[in-house]
């Protein structure tokens, strides 16, 4: 068990170290990285299946009992997040084989990529607050490296903003964790669940909640803390943006969900109020930001923000349906958003630019690409029968159930505005004729490159479609996961058997 739960980060670390060692031999590094991703995917699938079978599983690193040693835990939320990380990791790794240039590979792209995955998986699987900080840092430093890899001028500029703002988040997080320890004497998440409930110092609880919301809010790109995201997500190679978009901000959201379901007392209305306001403003601000953009990836970057709002909304509403909606939305969003970014990369390859004014003609020459984009984009906009619709439906129903009508209204308006941006891309990049010539067709690529580019996209779009047509199993899973989150007794009992929950 211990090894099974540790492998999601140990394997990528090992692969990453070997890939870094072999970075001067890109072909070998690439193979190592790809194999690592396949291995990671297998591991997370095994974990997922076991969690479904057995419920929450936990392990103690170093064989020291909880809450003293570091605990690794996989409950349903962790399991699905791990699964997504494995999936995105594999999909982007395949795509990166075609999209990342040799120069960046020689500088260590594959190694950094693996270590990023290690950080992400570590964050999902750890059951210890300080250990979470460590994984956040692994992820952060790997993302720094990936972002600026290649050292182009725009990359450096975007990189500075990304680094500067994320370091602030890191420091807030570190302070908050230190103080959480100072308040409770423990770092174990399960132990914190009971310990924080006994704290008699509301001021400390409130202010620590704020610090954590700000720290995780920066990572998750909540309004008004998201500046780093639109400033930087369009500068690195698109494979990097894709994995960032799919996983990085989601780790912030995951941390928020963990913090405010497991650690802090459930009836902590202050945090939920705060999160609700932030979620609504994030949804609107992000989608409005996207409407003002005319660059493929910038539009998508702003939409990431908007959708973070949806994810946090479910947490803020704090009902079983809302939380289940959040988790479902997470799955849907990670799959669709990653895919859209992959498509943007291929679209650029076919047309020569990310700027919508300068490209076009893809609809006619690349019907497959167009179909994949269309499905992913309309799923993002929440059209049935695609995955995004059910996600939206759950969240809107949850807000209507709580008589939060204006919340539902904002969610729906955001959906409409998302549609506006998605149809803009469709209209400009796909329908419009290419302004200065012809778009290339996919068939003009070598077979290898076509597979590398389209296989991940097709895989992800199949998931989007599958979740749209047969959402029941996942919704049921999400409902169970939400139940676990709302009543962490099972989680606590698994980690700390002596306390019996």
């Amino acid at each position, binding site marked *: 068990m211990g090894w099974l739960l540790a492998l999601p980060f140990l394997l990528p670390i090992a692969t990453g170290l070997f890939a870094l060692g072999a970075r001067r031999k890109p072909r070998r590094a690439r193979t190592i990285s790809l194999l690592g991703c396949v291995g990671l995917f297998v591991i997370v699938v095994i974990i997922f299946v076991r969690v479904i079978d057995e419920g929450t599983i936990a392990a103690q*690193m*170093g064989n*020291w009992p909880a809450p*003293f040693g*570091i605990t690794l835990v996989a409950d349903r939320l962790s399991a699905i997040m791990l699964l997504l990380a494995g999936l995105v990791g594999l999909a982007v790794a395949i795509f990166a084989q075609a*999209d*990342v*240039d*040799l*120069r960046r590979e*020689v500088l260590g792209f594959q*190694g950094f990529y693996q270590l990023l995955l*290690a950080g992400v998986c570590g964050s999902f699987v750890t059951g210890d607050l300080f250990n979470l900080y*460590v994984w956040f840092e*692994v992820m952060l*430093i790997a993302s*720094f*490296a990936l972002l*600026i*890899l290649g*050292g*182009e001028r725009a990359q450096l500029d975007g990189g500075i903003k990304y680094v500067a703002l994320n370091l*602030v988040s890191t420091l807030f997080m570190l302070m908050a964790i230190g*103080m959480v*320890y*100072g308040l409770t*004497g423990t*770092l174990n998440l399960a132990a914190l669940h009971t310990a924080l409930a006994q*704290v*008699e*110092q509301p*001021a*400390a609880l*409130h*202010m620590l*909640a*704020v*610090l954590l919301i*700000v720290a995780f809010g920066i990572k998750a790109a909540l309004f*008004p*803390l998201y*500046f780093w995201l639109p400033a930087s997500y369009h*500068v690195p190679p698109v494979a990097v943006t894709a994995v960032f978009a799919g996983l990085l901000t989601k780790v912030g959201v995951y941390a928020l969900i963990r913090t405010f379901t497991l650690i802090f007392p459930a009836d902590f209305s202050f945090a939920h109020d*705060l999160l609700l306001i932030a979620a609504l403003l994030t949804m609107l601000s992000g989608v409005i*930001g996207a*409407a*003002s*953009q005319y660059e493929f990836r910038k539009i998508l970057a702003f939409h990431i923000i908007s959708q973070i709002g949806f994810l946090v909304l479910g947490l803020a509403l704090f009902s079983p349906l809302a939380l289940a909606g959040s988790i479902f939305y997470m799955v849907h969003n990670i799959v669709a958003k990653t895919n859209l970014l992959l498509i943007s990369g291929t679209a650029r*390859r076919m047309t020569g630019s990310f700027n919508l004014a300068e490209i076009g003609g893809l609809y006619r020459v690349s019907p497959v690409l167009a179909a994949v984009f269309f499905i992913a984009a309309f799923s993002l906009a929440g*059209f049935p029968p695609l995955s995004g*619709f*059910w996600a939206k*439906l759950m969240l*809107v*129903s949850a807000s209507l159930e709580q008589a939060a*009508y204006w919340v539902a*209204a904002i969610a729906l308006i955001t*959906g409409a505005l998302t549609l506006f941006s998605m149809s803009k891309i469709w209209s400009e990049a796909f*329908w*419009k004729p290419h302004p200065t010539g012809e778009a290339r067709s996919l068939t003009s690529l070598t077979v290898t490159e076509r597979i590398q580019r389209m296989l991940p996209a097709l895989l992800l779009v199949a998931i989007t479609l599958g979740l749209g047509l047969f959402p029941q199993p996942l919704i049921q899973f999400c409902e169970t996961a939400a139940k676990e989150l709302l009543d962490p007794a099972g989680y606590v009992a698994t980690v700390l058997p002596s306390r019996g929950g």
Partner: protein
Amino acid sequence: MDTEVHSGDQPPTGWGERIWSLALLAFPLGVTLWLLSLIGPVREHAPLVFGVSWIPSLGVELNFLIDGLSLLFGLLVSGVGFFVALYAKFYLRGHPLIQRFFFYLFLFMLGMLGLVLAGNLITLFVFWEITTIASYLLIGFNHEKASARRSALQALLITAVGGLALLAGLLLLGMIVGSYNFVEVLAAKDKVHSHALYLPILILVLIGAFTKSAQLPFHFWLPNAMAAPTPVSAYLHSATMVKAGIYLLARMYPVLGGSEAWLLTLNIVGAVTAVIAAILAMRQTDLKLALAYTTVVALGILIMFLGSEASVAIAAAITFILVHSFYKAALFMVVGIIDHQTGTRELTALGGLGRRLPITFAIAAAAGFSMAGFPPFLGFIGKELKYEGALAIAEEPTFVAWAAVFANALMVAIAATVALRPFWGRLPEKLQSVREAPPGLWISPLVMALLGLTFGLAPALIADTLVGPAVTATMGREESVSLKLWHGINLPLVMSITTFALGALAFYLQPQIRTLLNRIANWLPANSDTQWDRGLDLFKRGAALHTRHIQHGILKHYLAAVFAVASVLLLWGLMRSGGFDMAVNWERLTVKEWAAMALVFAGSLVAICTRTPLTAICSLGGMGVGIALIFLFFGAPDVAITQLLVETLFLVLVALTLHRLPHATEVSGTGFRFVDALLAVSVGTTVSLTILAVLQQPLISPTKEYFELAAVPEAFGRNIVNVILVDFRALDTFGEVVVVLVAAVGAAALLRRKLKPSVPHGDTQEEQT
């Protein structure tokens, strides 16, 4: 307007095309036959309900409800669909994207059938949106034309926004009823009507219906949707999709209908839409566009009649749905034939085609008569029923009756214009060589027109089988309908005659009316279409403004915002919690402790005051030493040593770097920054307050105890800190090593001199400057 002509040399039909066109024909034909076979059972027994569970967690079933109403609509969708598909197969033969066209049309058919047969609110909505998507793709089918793209977007956005309102309405409705299943929803009228949310639900559902069915003020997307190929216009924008809103209201009639708000809104919106659209239709010289506006008229009339509690009005609406579908589909296809054969559909460029296109002419005339409401066509029965219904509408009989007469009169004029004008008069030079269309093109409209005639002559064929059950299903109570050509001399007949007279007059005066209307249009500041552009533009500018102010690209302002948010929220949290009693604990410090703290203090202050980086580095070094001393004095020698080493190493690194940043100090704004200082102080204060709040709670740490007791016997180490690092929490340490390692390799990658440009592999990222 654009035309699309694909005659002449045609490439051989490919396999894909053949398969798709076969599917497209077989599917609606099968459905039609199946539905026809259900007419008897549905009429005699209860509605047919069947389906499978889909998403039990959300109460969504993939189930279907076939009663008189859905049967009628289902037959229209599949029956008209079959003939339109047949027509399209010939109309678009050889088009390079024809496979996609067939796919979209198929998708649309599926969506539309699902919509009218759905037995669950959410399932209905799913299909509703599928029709939106399919129509988006079809309207934008001629995607290389900017106008087609614009029209597609417009239709998409308007119907999608309406769809979202509808979704909210349906969710609320389902919430009140406790189920999304239609059987239960339709039976919950009292519960829903008495609920406080009734009005919001009604408004939301109406917005959904009105946008889809192109009611004022959302009407303008429909004429623009004529950018789609003509078969699409014939199908979606006359016979099916726009009727989705009508279907929705008819479906919801038993549960939402009957209130004053319902009756009044539907009457007024419908009447105003019908009248205004009729006037707008008179302006058009493009045949297709004129027809499009009359579709809006028809929809307005339908909405108007649904706002009634009289069964005759509902019967009028149901009959008119049939009438309209037949003649409108036929006329659109006729216009398509004209366009296809002549290359234009501009009224002024056409004439005398009667001799060249005799069959088309006959079809056009038959459909036109039905549209104008002449006996013995079904249109006549429909119109008589309409007038009867109008007079029976309790709330506003005069108003509705006048609106109906007026709109119908103009319809007569337009029917004459579209169905007769192009075929009369002198044949222009350019059109001398025009020949009759192939049978594949005229067979479908012919059937449509013949249906209008047959049912007009033998109305009993549909009275009991289709119309009656549909009225029953709509009203939610048993109703029987008798359709007759001759009712005797009564008020409706008088109104009919008035209509013909007025219509003839309008037809005769059409050029003058058109000139007048154009003059008025020029004088009006804007129409809804330009308002749409303005609105969109305003939104885009607003969005740009928002983004420019939030995402401005200045790092220090980003940071300031983050810090400001943090400190304000910390204060807010403090206030919400009710504050805490600050027990400040000024225990006596020794001199050396004071000195260490003073060193830190001084180091910090010098660092912010100095302008030379070297001084700052030195002062930071001093601060570092101070901190190390604090660690040392309070029992943390390991930390103290590490602190000292790291601080020294790092500052040496910075100092050595300085010579490579020669202009490091020459940056803007080096003076005292008051706002920043204020912000800094508030962050410092709030963070300190947080720690103080934390310190109020006594620390009970079983972990500390455990580590102290377990270190020697279990972990064999006497330095507890080190035991924690390498054993108790080795994972943290391992992660931390990875961080430093990545930092090192990352920095190396960043600073390494540019490698020789390698072989381009895939695409290389170019700069964005």
